[in-house]
């Protein structure tokens, strides 16, 4: 996976400090190849009275896929997950698991496992009994239950904790118990609702890697809900981005980053976010420019064609922070507003004359800038052209 610079470094660092799950135990996991099923939502709408949480949503996680549902809070992604689990009924549309319509199948018979944001561990049961619970619910014989619990506990390094109560565990341990409880019974799909959001930053990076590791070694379908675009980018094979109950884009992390379907996706994925600038198309110095506050942005031939074909007067352009750089001869004037040093790089927020903030990404070796300092910037990377009315992507121009 070739990821943009900011994210690839994060993947590498997370993989480096992560203790791999023992191979032997994983090989013995009770999950058979082929147990994983596809999960599909077809034309799903979910309303609560006058409020529509999800509008005509169609998406499919293929069997064995790691699909991430990404979006801001309240976008309907958790509702989508609960619809798959059977904890909510769709107002209209079809839910399929493994090709079979499950609209009328009760949650307990859908054979999916869910990891809740709160982990939802049974507080009165020991870790061992927690993991065993789904097997008990399915009347698996006791001897087999013990064996399965022991195997899963070993693979998730929980053997020492089996007699503890959830209250006696750390956040990371609880997280692993929740995973163990989900994995122990070979479900058709894993539904995960922000499972890492209650962990501290360091542990989150580690668990991220462990989950990806688990997915690459065992054939499981994972539907993973998060509002954290870094989690989505680093973990998902594909990402479905939702906003206000509507699917914005469903594609690989790379495609979502390089060709965001619209200005919302462009602004949501990537940190710092893509800079969206609104301006007028102007012909100056024998070329077509976009006049923005503080200066102008040049357009590459494909973008010029796109603007001319549509006879656009107003233009919306998007520039990733790495597509802008400081340049004494740059075409845009701005003032330094904020400098964030994040170790290997700096994120600098610049204020344009109109008041809008623009982020640029710089190496950590570049000299620190003073707040208030006047600078000039140049567009040196990819420019995304968006429709000024709909916000949809028109064209991506590479310099």
């Amino acid at each position: 996976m070739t990821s943009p610079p900011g994210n690839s470094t994060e993947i590498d660092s997370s993989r480096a400090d992560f203790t791999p799950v023992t191979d032997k135990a994983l090989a013995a996991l009770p999950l058979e190849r082929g147990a994983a099923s596809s999960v599909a939502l077809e034309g799903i709408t979910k309303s609560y009275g006058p409020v529509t949480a999800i509008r005509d949503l169609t998406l499919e996680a293929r069997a064995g896929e790691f699909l991430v549902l990404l979006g801001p809070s309240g976008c309907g992604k958790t509702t989508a997950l609960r619809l798959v689990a059977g904890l909510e009924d769709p107002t209209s549309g079809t839910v399929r698991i493994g090709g079979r319509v499950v609209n009328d199948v009760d949650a307990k018979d859908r054979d999916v496992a869910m990891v809740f944001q709160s982990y939802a561990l049974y507080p009165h049961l020991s870790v061992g009994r927690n993991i065993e619970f789904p097997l008990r619910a399915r009347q698996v014989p006791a001897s087999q239950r013990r064996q399965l619990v022991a195997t899963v506990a070993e693979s998730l390094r929980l053997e020492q904790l089996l007699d503890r109560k959830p209250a006696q565990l750390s956040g990371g341990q609880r997280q692993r118990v929740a995973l163990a409880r989900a994995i122990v019974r070979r479900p058709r799909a894993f539904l995960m609702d922000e499972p890492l959001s209650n962990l501290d930053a360091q542990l989150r990076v580690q668990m991220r890697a462990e989950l990806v590791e688990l997915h690459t070694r065992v054939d499981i379908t994972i539907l993973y809900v998060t509002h954290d675009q870094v989690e989505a980018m680093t973990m998902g094979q594909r990402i479905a981005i939702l906003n206000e109950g509507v699917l914005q884009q469903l594609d690989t992390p790379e495609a979502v980053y390089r060709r965001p379907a619209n200005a919302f996706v462009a602004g949501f994925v990537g940190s710092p976010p893509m800079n969206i600038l609104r301006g007028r198309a102007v012909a100056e110095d024998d070329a077509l420019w976009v006049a923005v506050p503080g200066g102008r942005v040049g357009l590459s031939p494909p973008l010029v064609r796109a603007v001319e074909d549509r006879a656009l007067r107003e233009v919306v352009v998007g520039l990733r922070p790495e597509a802008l750089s400081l340049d004494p001869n740059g075409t845009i004037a701005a003032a330094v507003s904020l400098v964030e040093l994040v170790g290997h790089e700096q994120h600098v927020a610049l204020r344009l004359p109109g008041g809008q903030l623009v982020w640029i990404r710089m190496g950590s070796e570049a000299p620190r800038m003073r707040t208030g300092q006047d600078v000039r910037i140049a567009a040196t990377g990819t420019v995304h052209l968006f429709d000024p009315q709909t916000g949809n992507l028109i064209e991506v121009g590479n310099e």
Partner: protein
Amino acid sequence: MGARHRARGAHARQRPQSRPLRKAGAAYLFVLPALVAFGVFVFYPLVKTAYLGFFTSPPAPNLPSHYVGLTQYRAVLSSSDFLDSLWRTVQFVLYTVPAGIVLGIGLAMLANQRLAGIRIFRTIYSSTVATSAAVAAVIFFTLLNPQVGLLSYWLGRKGGSGVLQSSSLALPAVSVVTIWQNIGFTFILMSAALQSVPDDLLEAARVDGASSWLRFRSVTIPLLSPMIFFTTIVGVIGGFQSFGQIDILTQGGPNNHTLLLIYDLYQQAFKYDNTGYAAVLSVALFGILLLLTFMQFWFFQRRVFYAR
């Protein structure tokens, strides 16, 4: 916190003794009012009652009572009258407490549904809290009246001996009235406990494949267990002390079939002026309840789950 510790340490070095003493003095001062109240209204009567048990009451008023030591205790506690009324009381508690808790949980589960108009049912279910034992008893006394009672009519016992006049049905009937009267209280407690069971635990159990019965047994009941424990203790004590409904419905009859310990005690003390006998019953009741409560604590200790 650290700063406070240091400050206290410095203070203690200057005046090593005075501070703890003064603190203790203040503490006793604060406890004193409660101690006095308890002493006058609880401890003194308790001791005095136990003491009264050493005396037999005179056959007629204004005659001196006789000191008999432990003889009266031995005689009363081994008498068939006492053992019979104790057994009836145990039966009464066994009829009322478990049934009350089961019904309370059942109604709380029903009223916990998200349905239109459910508040009306919540109000109805909890309404008996606002009903005194006397009112409840009078209502049922009328309903069970052999001549005009609606319940008697439905039970096909019109005319002749009514339910309350039947030696086999009087105690169950009184028990039903008691259950009815306590249901509101149990319902409110169980509803409160039920609301504190997190939804996502029940949802997790559902996704884990648990049937509604398993969810109830393995998730809901354990999380309700502190409240079940509390209700059991309070219910057993309340059951042993039931008086009002007996007094209004049956006065211990027919033929002593609803003569519970406390009613026996009341009759001995205030009807027959047999103070010594009643004192022995009081002490016995106290001892029995103390023992039962300890036993319940011991029984529930390993079975109750307290969330941290």
